[in-house]
């Protein structure tokens, strides 16, 4: 293995990690504001992937365009989910909200199955390749990674530099105090869940920029599992933590691979994932609050 190979592996880890980060942000955001663990996060990612697929195949619209559609639809869908289902569950027992979002996840998956069937879908997105340290690197994946970083930056600026962002942070910290100060808490919840859902769907679009194949109603499930790990790693409820957690997760995934390959494990990829979970376990024992505070 030469230096170029090592640099390329790190580059891949950063791109993949950036995408993991933006995918996990939605989950972290919703938990941070409402204390609800959203098990329908994976289904929303899947709908984001279908959005990219549908607009590309029907209207030849690049995912760079369909990401805006996903964001808009996501905000609307998230707000609707709040008012129809989650509003009455705020403050309810954790199991109740888990079951409700799990049911929602099944509903969204079955809806996709009705619309698209069970076939694996994919679209032929090719934006070109560039030479990166002597290896061919997909431009669409690179754009996906950059887009993920841009979206995360915009969300952070929104949360920390605008009045609405301050209101969201206030509700996240103390909903009763925020209510006393005149903030419409329900509206903030709706916006928060809307934003979380929008990021989940946008994450789905960006995930297809990395690999625009294998889209089916269960597409989001592996991402849901990874998102949980990432948000716990980064600190539950922290947007920046989720993004950096994603970067760490992506880097670990790509850098551990050649080590296990060199050690001649029959499935280096599985071993890399296994080690990531071990690291997470140790980290939680040593620092249960995650790497970043809310």
């Amino acid at each position: 293995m030469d230096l170029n190979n090592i640099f390329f592996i790190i580059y891949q880890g950063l791109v993949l990690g950036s995408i993991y980060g933006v995918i996990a942000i939605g989950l972290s955001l919703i938990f941070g504001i409402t204390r609800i663990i959203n098990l329908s996060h994976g289904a929303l990612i899947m709908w984001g992937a279908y959005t990219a697929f549908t607009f590309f195949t029907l209207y030849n619209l690049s995912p760079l365009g369909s990401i805006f559609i996903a964001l808009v639809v996501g905000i609307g869908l998230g707000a609707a989910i709040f008012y129809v289902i989650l509003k009455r569950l705020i403050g309810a027992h954790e199991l109740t909200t888990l079951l409700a979002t799990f049911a929602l996840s099944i509903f969204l998956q079955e809806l996709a199955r009705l619309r698209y069937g069970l076939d694996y879908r994919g679209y032929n997105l090719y934006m070109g390749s560039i030479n990166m340290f002597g290896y061919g690197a997909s431009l669409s994946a690179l754009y996906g990674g950059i887009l993920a970083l841009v979206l995360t930056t915009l969300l952070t600026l929104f949360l920390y530099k605008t009045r609405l962002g301050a209101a969201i942070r206030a509700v996240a910290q103390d909903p009763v105090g925020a209510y006393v100060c005149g903030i419409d808490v329900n509206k903030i919840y709706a916006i928060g869940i809307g934003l979380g859902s929008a990021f989940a769907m946008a994450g789905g679009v960006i995930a297809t920029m990395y690999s625009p194949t294998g889209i089916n109603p269960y597409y989001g499930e592996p991402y849901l599992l990874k998102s949980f790990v990432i948000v716990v790693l980064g600190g539950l409820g922290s947007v920046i933590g989720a993004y950096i957690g994603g970067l760490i997760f992506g880097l670990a995934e790509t850098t551990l691979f050649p080590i296990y390959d060199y050690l001649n494990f029959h499935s280096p990829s599985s071993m890399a994932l296994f080690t990531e979970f071990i690291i997470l376990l140790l980290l939680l024992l040593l620092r249960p609050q995650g790497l970043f505070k809310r």
Partner: protein
Amino acid sequence: MNKLYIAIIIVAIIMFLVGYLVGGFIPRAPTGLVTVSIPYTYTVSTVKTVTMTTYSPPATTPPVTTPATSPSPTPLTPLPEKIVIGLSVPLTGSQGEVGTAGFKGILAAIKWVNEVYGGVHLFGKTIPLELKYYDDESSKDKVISYTERLITVDKVHFLLSSYSSPLVFAQAPIAEKYNMLLVNWGGASDLIHMQGYKMVVMVWTPASQYMIQAIDALLSANKQPKIVLLYKDDEFNRMVAAGVRNYSKKLGVEIVYDKAYPTDIKDFTPYITLIAPLKADALIVGSHFADGQLLTKQLSDQNVNFAFIAMNIAPCYMDYYKAFGKLAEGIICPSHWEIGASYTPEIATKLGLEWFGPSEDEFIKYYREIVGDPNARPPYHAASGAAAVLVLVKAIEKAQSLDPIKVRQAFNDMRLATFFGEFKIDPATGIQIGHKMILVQWQKGNLVVVWPPEVAKAKLMYPIPTWDQKRAGS
């Protein structure tokens, strides 16, 4: 206290890793073709004793000769009005798409048997077939309960298997428990037939033989190829890889990279980064659909080229070409059956085999009637389901009995040709040894049969164009 927990966990992890590492370095026998010694004897009715000994690789399996069962002039028990076949099949769930195709093929074959052939010929009478089925929703739990229900409540005469290796793996012990014959058209893993089951008979080629033809085809174009072998870490593809490994070793073909990937893989770039510098000639992949698509996409994005790419399942579907267009050109897929590559009565005669069943055209006609689409193209899963019905009918007639054990015994020395191909099992395990895979390759937007040469409709394209050449339109 926390420190104690941490210490315990660290020690546990270290011990696990050491164990795994040591286990990983111990040379393992290839799981696919291990000879298992399961000596057992079972008594068939009151007449014969069949001794079944070991499973050995198909080529060296000595045929077990079984005295022919002479048809009784009259049945010992009154004949039923219908012969009921039981089926638990995934019509929905993750295997729903393919399970449905197999189900439609089964219906088409039953329709042919009842309408054209006139029913099963038993003691001078013809008895129609009836299908009793349940949708197991691709669930292992459901396939187990429905299989038991079909045997104990619905009292079916025989069973056809579910679709996919995990589901057939789950239902086989149930059939075995009740001594019920299970005709396996949907589970390709060799392991199903290496558990010592006596009542399971396989219709299509087992997984370990899937890529054998691909290696033969590769050798026809390149005498000293270097192969990269990647496979999904599941029951089915581990067997596929074991078959490639064994056959390559036998022929002295060099495998320069041999690794599994996880079942829910979302990124092949770490693999591609490591195999790119190896400059191998061929890539052989034990895949399913989503992973096969993903690998194609990422190989093309990273511009990593091979002169020969053979991949399971994904390229066999039209959706693959829809997704990749010209990038699919030259990609090879092993298939059990394709339109235009069917056996015919003439081929059967040439091979000295008995012919049974509809012709390819007849099967397609009935399949289209069942599907309700005059342009429907039956996939090989549909043909395999149909073949299961046909071989079962022939075995019942040969046994002249509805006793599952006698019919199972009749399968032992049955050699038959249907439109799906040859049928012959290894008597000890019930594994299929007669049926051969074919190779199809995407050429100018069409999936054409390129191997074996005797049924090929086009010449093997080798080397295939590079990704850049394909993008440029050549």
